[in-house]
């Protein structure tokens, strides 16, 4: 019995083994490359694992568009997008290490089981060398653990929970997106500046891991600027009508409502909050305010008029004026007719970063790629100068504090940037208590087979 834990179809797919009619059984582990799914001479396959069904299907569809664009650019098609602005010039539009980039797609269904099944099929059946995508932290953590075990690299998509690069961090997993801690760190000073330091906050928190880490982060950072937390109530994930959670808020002595909700939860709780008149209300002699820590433009659209004037944070926004962002928006917009979302941005960048790291490392071996990504500093991909920190595989870059726009000019023009929080302000130590403390470790990088 061989010890190969995951197979390496890549070799076969290129047709290198046409062989005699009846080849002898092969122990593929004995192959010289020494890592899972080593690609053949002419092609390399990525696995784009995004939600295609379920509530985050639209976000998944946008991620997939970004991936297709990235593939096009890496293979030399289109206008090259961010390849032209990326500070590393290792990629030259001829594929990766002379191989044409192919991809397979799958549906995570935003369920960790389904996401792992899909990722395993990409690794076992399609010979994917890298898995990327996803639109929830549960999925990201589950797939990241799988990739660690299988010996491939995981480039996380949209995942905001601290856990992904906190207590659940893995040597084979990398996150470009920002996280709850950074949201708190970026948001608190703006909140203090706009709403004052004498504020009493009421938290509604989605009752699962991401909600917990976000609430913790926001509480810690707002309390540090002098706010008081009067109450915090957990809401079931499956809740659709938040009226019974919203109604008591106005009478609780609080003057700020923090909605630690995402996706459909956020749309519905914000809608309820606005219906109950919280946006116009007065409390403790001040205007009542609502804060949505994590904004996404796609979801903001679902919330419609209700987001006007509401503060939150976001990873990236198409209206950023730096060269990289502009280049990306231009190629994405030209191809699809509308601007990309933050999920699309992070997925596009992740693909390019991985391809670049392979090229710089000169190898597809996960450990070599990981080494090339660790402590890699780059620029020109939006959000300014960015560091992929080696200690926890988290990207550190500027975070955007945004506000629902009062007078949108188009259906995409929903958020305006209030402040670009510089990276130094959202930096933290790898053993920060919110990130799993001293116990959290990346473990050993795994090359697989």
């Amino acid at each position, binding site marked *: 019995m061989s010890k190969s834990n995951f197979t390496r179809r890549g070799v076969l797919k290129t047709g290198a083994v046409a062989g005699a009619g009846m080849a002898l059984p092969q122990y593929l582990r004995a192959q010289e490359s020494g890592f899972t799914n080593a690609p053949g001479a002419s092609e390399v396959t990525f696995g784009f694992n995004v939600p295609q*069904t*379920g509530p985050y299907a*639209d976000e998944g*569809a946008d991620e997939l568009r970004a991936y297709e664009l990235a593939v096009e650019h890496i293979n030399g098609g289109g206008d090259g997008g961010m390849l032209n602005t990326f500070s590393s010039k290792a990629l030259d539009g001829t594929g990766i290490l002379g191989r044409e980039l192919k991809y397979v797609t799958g549906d995570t269904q935003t369920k960790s089981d389904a996401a792992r099944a899909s990722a395993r099929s990409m690794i076992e059946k399609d010979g994917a060398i890298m898995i990327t995508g996803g639109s929830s932290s549960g999925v990201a953590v589950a797939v990241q653990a799988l990739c660690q075990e299988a010996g491939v690299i995981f480039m996380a998509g949209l995942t905001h929970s601290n856990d992904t690069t906190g207590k659940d961090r893995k040597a084979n997993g990398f996150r470009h997106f920002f996280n709850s801690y950074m949201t708190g760190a970026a948001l608190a000073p703006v909140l203090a500046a706009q709403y004052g330091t004498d504020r009493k906050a009421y938290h509604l928190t989605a009752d699962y891991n991401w909600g917990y880490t976000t609430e913790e982060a926001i509480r810690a950072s707002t309390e540090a600027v002098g706010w008081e937390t009067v109450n915090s109530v957990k809401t079931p994930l499956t809740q659709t*009508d938040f009226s*019974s959670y919203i109604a*008591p808020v106005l009478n609780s002595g609080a003057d700020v409502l923090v909605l630690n909700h995402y996706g459909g939860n956020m*749309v519905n709780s914000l809608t309820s909050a606005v219906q109950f008149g919280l946006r116009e*209300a007065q409390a403790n002699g001040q205007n009542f305010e609502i804060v949505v820590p994590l904004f996404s433009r796609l979801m903001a659209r679902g919330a419609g008029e209700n987001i006007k004037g509401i503060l939150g944070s976001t990873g990236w926004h198409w209206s950023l004026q730096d060269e990289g962002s502009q280049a990306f928006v231009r190629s994405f917009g030209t191809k699809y007719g509308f601007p990309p979302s933050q999920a699309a941005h992070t997925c596009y960048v992740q693909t390019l970063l991985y391809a670049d790291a392979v090229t710089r490392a000169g190898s597809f071996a996960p450990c070599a790629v990981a080494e090339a990504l660790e402590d890699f500093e780059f620029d020109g991909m939006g959000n300014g100068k960015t560091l992929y920190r080696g200690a926890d595989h988290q990207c550190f870059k500027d975070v955007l504090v945004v506000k629902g726009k009062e007078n949108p000019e188009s259906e995409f023009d929903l958020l305006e940037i209030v402040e670009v929080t510089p990276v130094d302000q959202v930096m933290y130590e790898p053993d920060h208590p919110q990130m799993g403390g001293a116990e959290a470790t990346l473990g050993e990088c795994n090359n697989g087979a």
Partner: protein
Amino acid sequence: MDQIIVQILNGLDKGSAYALIALGLTLIFGTLGVVNFAHGALFMLGSFCAVILSRLLSSSHEVADPDRLDFLGNPAMNKVFYVQDIFGEAAGAAIMDWAVPLAILFSIPVMIGVGFIMERGLIKHFYKRPHADQILVTFGLAIVLQEIIKYFFGANPIQTPAPEAFKGSLDFGVFLGYEANAIMYPYWRLVYFFFSAVIIAAVFAFLQFTTFGMVVRAGMADRETVGLLGIDIDKRFTFMFGLAAAVAGVAGVMYAPIVAPNYHMGMDFLVLSFVVVVVGGMGSLPGAVAAGFLLGILESFASMPVVVDILPGINQIIIYLVAIVILLTRPRGLMGRKGVMED
């Protein structure tokens, strides 16, 4: 105390949504004996009637604006709404603003039509089939309906606001002698509650006071006998299916401003509506309504911070916990009849 009143209001509001959905489900079950897993999808279709109408009303053509540029640097396009072309600016805007209430009128014929087609084309053939087959075919249908909606409208929720006139809240507490802001309640939710009450009353009156309704009620009680009387019960049943679809649809339209419609909202409501119907007692219309309000109110109470502090997680499970307690103490739910769906 004021908090309790607030939660009673919330509960009535939630309860009226549950009651409306359960009412339609029970109508179909009681008259046709069909377990309709596509009922949630009918509710969803109703919500999308509001979305579709508001899209239709705000359909527009674009005129290039020389002063502005879009995100790619091309000249930006300004939308010009057809209704405003036709009815003038103010009237056009008002029509678009009132899309949701107008959608009620729009949805009734649409949903009755959907109901007729469903019953004649599919459900009719499943009256004599085992409940398991009914579940499978209607579940399949529900998936198909929601995927069609997803294909055209995407997966994200679509905000469908109530008319401007209903925005804002009523300071309910002032009437009861509380200080201002103690009990605020949004107008639209009050409208929803009264509207539901009217619909429920109308359905009951229809069944109680019309001969048509009497025959149908007799059919619910004893289908075979009514068949023996030579009454063509089939046509009436088709109509009942249409009616049930319309009730679900109208409930959906009115709910659109409360919870932004999305393609899978039907599935979210499906399990809940079955729980409501069963807690009320299979085949009992008053039971379904009573259970809807009971569960709505209890769910609201369970979400109060004081309650959750004492019993963490109670808000997650209250509906199911209540269902278990009721079914164990009252074998056929609140008002269920003997022998219905017990084997």
